[in-house]
């Protein structure tokens, strides 16, 4: 491990006494800033259903890159489509397939001798994961369909792959909220086109109609994108069993007021069930805080 943490002691830049603009102090370069990740999740089949077609996944791990250990995590929520064959199998197959691909592409290579193969980009890893999940659903749960929202954090980059109407939110420590995903649902599209209001969408008879889902549409097209992870805050992944019935403000308040991540997940589930729990509920909550670690 010595090489990992050793700092090279080569050329020192002389400070320029004449210049008012000095070089930045060397201390600022002695550390690498990356997020520390903690997560919890909870699930419920809801009040009105006795089966659970949702699936969740949360793994935290380390990857070594450029001789530095980097924090990483993969989180996913999938909501199997009811009324279709094998809804619950499709959602499980989807998260398993993503997990195994991420492990294969990110985790395992560091235990093998380095190859000349070029590094996979984060977006290409998730794209590959989506298409392998899609194919596996065809094989193992033919006719089944599922939504899938997965978030891959590596160092300071968040990469999201999303299809359907499960969601990923960012919740800042000061309470600001950002919805990272766009629902692939008919009503969302009608809202975007200005044909119906947000209010009408909430009670629309076709609010469960999707226009994209894994295992269903062919060709399958997921939204896959990367963005810098904010310095601190929460990442919330959830199925429509939560966001469809609990107002955003209440979700945010619950998370901010809770001292414990696991507790917050339970409370969110409870809130959804208190509204009548019409659907399966799945929640993953990830807390991240950037800290400097010595190189």
């Amino acid at each position: 491990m010595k090489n990992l943490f050793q700092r090279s002691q080569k050329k020192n830049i002389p400070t320029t006494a004449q210049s008012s603009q000095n070089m930045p102090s060397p201390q600022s370069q002695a550390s690498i800033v990356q997020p520390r990740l903690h997560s919890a999740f909870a699930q419920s089949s809801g009040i009105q259903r006795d089966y659970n077609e949702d699936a969740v996944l949360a793994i935290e791990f380390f990857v070594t890159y450029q001789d530095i250990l980097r924090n990483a995590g993969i989180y996913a929520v999938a909501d199997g489509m009811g009324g279709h064959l094998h809804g619950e199998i499709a959602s499980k197959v989807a998260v398993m397939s993503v997990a195994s691909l991420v492990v294969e592409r990110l985790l395992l290579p560091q235990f093998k001798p380095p190859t000349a193969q070029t590094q996979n980009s984060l977006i290409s890893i998730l794209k590959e994961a989506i298409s392998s999940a899609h194919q596996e659903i065809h094989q193992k749960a033919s006719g089944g369909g599922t939504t899938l929202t997965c978030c891959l954090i590596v160092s300071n980059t968040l990469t999201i792959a999303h299809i359907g109407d499960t969601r990923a939110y960012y919740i800042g420590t000061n309470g600001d909220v950002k919805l990272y995903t766009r629902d692939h649902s008919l009503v969302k599209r009608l809202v975007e086109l200005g044909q119906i209001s947000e209010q009408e969408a909430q009670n629309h008879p076709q609010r469960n109609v999707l226009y994209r889902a894994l295992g269903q549409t062919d060709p399958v097209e997921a939204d896959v994108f990367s963005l810098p992870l904010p310095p601190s805050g929460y990442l919330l992944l959830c199925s429509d069993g939560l966001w469809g019935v609990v107002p955003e403000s209440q979700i945010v308040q619950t998370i901010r007021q809770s001292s414990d991540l696991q507790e917050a997940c339970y409370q969110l589930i409870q809130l959804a069930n208190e509204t009548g729990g019409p659907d399966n509920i799945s929640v993953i909550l990830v807390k991240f805080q950037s800290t400097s670690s010595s190189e």
Partner: protein
Amino acid sequence: MGAVYKARDLHFPNVVKQVAVKEMVIQTRDPVVRASIIRNFEREANLLATLDHPAIPRIFDYFTAHDRSYLVLELINGKTLEALINEDIPIPQVIQWAIEICDVLSYLHNHQPEPIIFRDMKPSNVMINQYGKVMLIDFGIAKPFRGDQKGTMIGTEGYSPPEQYRGQASHLADIYALGATLHHFLTKRDPRLEPPFSFGERPIRQFNPQVPPELEAVIYKALQYDPSDRFQSAKDMKMSLEAILSKNALPPSSHPSTRAVTQKIQPIWTFQCQDEIRGTPAYKDGWLFFGCYDHFFYALHGNKGELIWRYQTDGPIVSRPIIEDGNVIFGSADHRLHVVNQLSGKILWSYFTGAAIYSSPVCSGGHIFIGSDDAHLHAINLMSGNAVWKFDSGSPVRTTPFISNDKLYFGNEYGDFLCLDFRGNIRWRFRAKRGITGSAIVFNGVVYFGSLDGMVYAMEANSGWQMWRFRLGKPTISTPCLNGDDLYIGCADGNVYCIDIRSGKEQWRFTTEHQVAGSAVVHNGKIYFGSVDQHLYCLDKNGALIWKFQTGGAITGTPVIDQDRVYIGSTDGKMYALPLSP
């Protein structure tokens, strides 16, 4: 779902009569569902039997055996529109096919005793037979739409009109789907990969400039969200299409590049040098600074284009100057970095590297950083002109280093991309498959650059972790330019690409006649760049041409813009000052 077989009708043993046999496998064991599937199948058979139109295949027979049902149909030798999408079909031919589709739709919609709605118009259901005539295939899916169940998927995604999801499908749904089919065919953008009802967000002529505006207008009328805004009959649509054909409104010059330019751009001034101008100028305080292959470095009045001073080096100059503390700083192929007084054009000092300089300087914290063909990145004290350190990258450095967050980012001709700290220590490195001649930019913690390996890379600036990469048609030496979530980069294939920086997906591309070596700049929402095809282009943010201006030679540099004009050098040896709009 099922297969279609080519079969021979043995009722005619003495001749070869070929037919198509469409097979449907009944998968379900549920007797009720089975019965309904067989009913549907027989419905298609009966429907077809009542129809008599040259664009509808004739039916000879139908039967059910074991778990399969079969239709015996006229065999059509040909290709579907879906298969033809990537072939170069002349626009008049596409219009002709559209007219034929209107004809057959009109026939169906006026069918007695009740109108027939095709409901499944899409490229894979339209066949072009061996005589080049349209045939509609697959009358199988006239299913009612059900949206009551949790998580239902919507029908033939992409081509269906909004009202179909409300369970209302009139003949106007077929008009919409025909519009969607033509949109897909002409733009090559599959609507199944896009959000529903988003055709308006992909203007046809942007993807296919050969489409005349009249045809675009007809297609968008068919694609109106509200059914009452569409053509009210297939016949109406047919008439509009025929009008385009008869007007022959398809002159060979329907290319947008000639169309959009209504007024000619006239240069405000030009300035003639003795040799090619290949680099990029700098503009500061009303003065324009640039180097030339005639070995001179020029300072001009931006207003009038008059010479203020010129300064001679011993080699061609391609390096883009920077102006820092009243001094102009640039490299030359004479191996030197020159620091010249901005007002007088007199030398303050110069700094020798071991080989020609094609890189451009950057300045930070009282230091100048520049690459050289001696394979080093040099850090030079701005006050003294002495080297502070130099970093051996192993191969010529022609990129301009980018400084962000106390780190330097640059590539070299071997394909190494390096991130150094201010003391010259490596933070991370990455190796592309070919050289990196275009410079990098860093924004929001992400570094972007292109390579001669034909890739554009987006990497986390802190770690070098790849977020995405995008494959261009050919190598690039252009530096990316950012505008919101859009990244623009030129390429040797003659295109400027617009890539979404979050997903690494292409948004649009604009094709010029030759390679695009320089970079784009954005000013007031418009994009300006030059091409080796001699033109300076001005595009809107959707990649549509606003104007272009032809210089006398190739443009390899990047334009510079002050408030109301754009400056660009050309290999005809001229520096041009142009107005921002005609």
